[in-house]
């Protein structure tokens, strides 16, 4: 996992890492949660296709807000809380980052209103499995989690690029319309 360690070293302090099977992961406990949460969030968006209701927007904002008190060490906490708060932050972050590309591509037509509680339950489904794999898993489980985290990092990066592209594109179209 050396190449993963190199890549994550640019975005992660790599201290306080889970060590499934005795091998320390290339990403810290909090970032592991964040990037796995990011990946899971996209999965939820694609499968459930929930319309961005006010309740969902607030819920994802609250999920992101759970991170700062712990991420900035205002509250003492351990590895499990680090991973959980990172995961919640990742879920909320990706949901927000999807909104602009969805607006520009007019994807609302594919969505439908979903009840909130089943959505929240679905969002939290992978957490216990991630924690079990990180704490008691084998070396293979650790490698798998690290690869998924890398996919989550790649996804978050792509979404930021997509947001920049969508904003630029909409500005160009707006200027062209104004000129016409």
């Amino acid at each position, binding site marked *: 996992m050396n190449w993963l360690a190199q890549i994550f070293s640019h975005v992660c302090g790599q201290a306080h890492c889970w060590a499934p099977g005795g091998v320390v992961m290339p990403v810290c406990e909090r970032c592991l949660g964040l990037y796995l949460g990011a990946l899971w969030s996209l999965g939820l968006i694609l499968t459930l296709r929930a319309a961005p209701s006010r309740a969902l927007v607030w819920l994802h904002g609250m999920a992101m807000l759970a991170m700062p008190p712990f991420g900035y060490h205002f509250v003492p906490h351990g590895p499990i809380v680090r991973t959980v708060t990172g995961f919640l932050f990742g879920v909320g972050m990706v949901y927000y*980052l999807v909104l602009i590309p969805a607006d520009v591509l007019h994807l609302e037509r594919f969505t439908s209103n979903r009840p909130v509680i089943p959505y929240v339950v679905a969002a939290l489904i992978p957490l216990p499995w991630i924690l079990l794999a990180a704490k008691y898993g084998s070396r293979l489980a650790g490698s798998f989690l690290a690869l998924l985290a890398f996919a989550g990092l790649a996804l978050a990066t792509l979404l930021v690029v997509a947001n920049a592209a969508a904003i630029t594109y909409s500005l160009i*179209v*707006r200027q062209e319309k104004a000129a016409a």
Partner: protein
Amino acid sequence: MLRPRALSLILAFIAFAGWILFILACTGWPGWSPDGKQIAFPYHDLKADATGIAVYDREQKTTTGLYLTQKNDTLAAAQWSRDGKQILLYQIFGDDDRFATEVLSIPVKDRHPIRSYGFTSTVMGDNPPLAEVNGTLYLGLDGITALDLNTWHTQQESISNYGLILFAMGDRLLYVAVPRKEEEQKPACPAASQQPAARKPPEKAATEKEEPPMPYEFGEVDRKDLSRHAWFTITDQQISDLAKCKADLVTHPATDAATGRMAFTVACDDKPDALLVFDRNGVSQLLRPKAEGNLLLTNPEWARDGKILYAGLYVRGENNQKRQYGIAEIALDTQAVRLTPVARIDASSGDYHDGVAVSLSPDGSMLATNLALIRSENDIDRDDMALYVVDLRDPQRAVTKVHPPNWEPKPPEAPKPASTRKAQ
């Protein structure tokens, strides 16, 4: 609709800014410039109530926090790699029968990438410093693990029944195989350890009783295949007979590469500690430092001229009483002691042997000892929680006290209101 909504723009900005802040908080900002004249030391951070690693710059007279653990029970330590390119931090997490050791490497030049290596074991790791020879770090737990500090590749050799103390003597890697006591060995099945002794087959119990205790084994490790080549063995009983007390070897010896000698502190239960000097053939000298009281010694360090052993020295006293701790210079020929007072502490023998250590600078001119890891103010005054550097070139042995990051003096006690009331 080709235009994003304003709310989407705001939320996307919040998510992006949050992510960037998250990354910055995780990777950290502070930088430091190593010049080869710094000391890395563990300390108890008063504000965070956690163990941290700090770097003291002797020229700039500054102390910088380098790393902070988030667990109070984490044992953390640090050392420089021999080439000076990396600071190696290691921390041990553990419970009763399973320990996880994590080694972090922070490149001195631009601080990234931080690399880490971890493994689990059934015994706790070595006391610092870990043995490093030719760019490879060697750890002894349930065997020998060689960690290449350039490629980060590992090589492992499992060993059962023994814990290993690994240490470097020049470019050679030496070991002491310490027999693992029965209660330290992890049972194959947890339930098996709970079986009452009477249920064992009588003939097996009798055989176990007759088995002589396993001796300590001293020798050299072949660094190519990690095989062990024994030099000699010595039993607990032989060490106790020599020291004339119920004795234990305190981990991490001093080595003198020029003469091939190694010195261990022998911790005695009820008598003053002693020092045992070994060479390739076995015990060559027993040292009883000539100092008054029931003294405890830390790990030793060998002076560059090979004639003096340095060690931290503390005299056992009654509980809840702080007593003088200092640096002892013990002459090998006369066993006379020159003591440089450092601070007053209250330590039980277990805490003392595990938690206090001395370390000699590479040129042999300075000696550092660290009391910044003692966290209880019952054991040490707030003002004395510090790293101490003793200048061995100074005939007066000047001592520099360095407080760790986030250290604050104790606030003055409020005056008693009783006298005011009386005056009224």
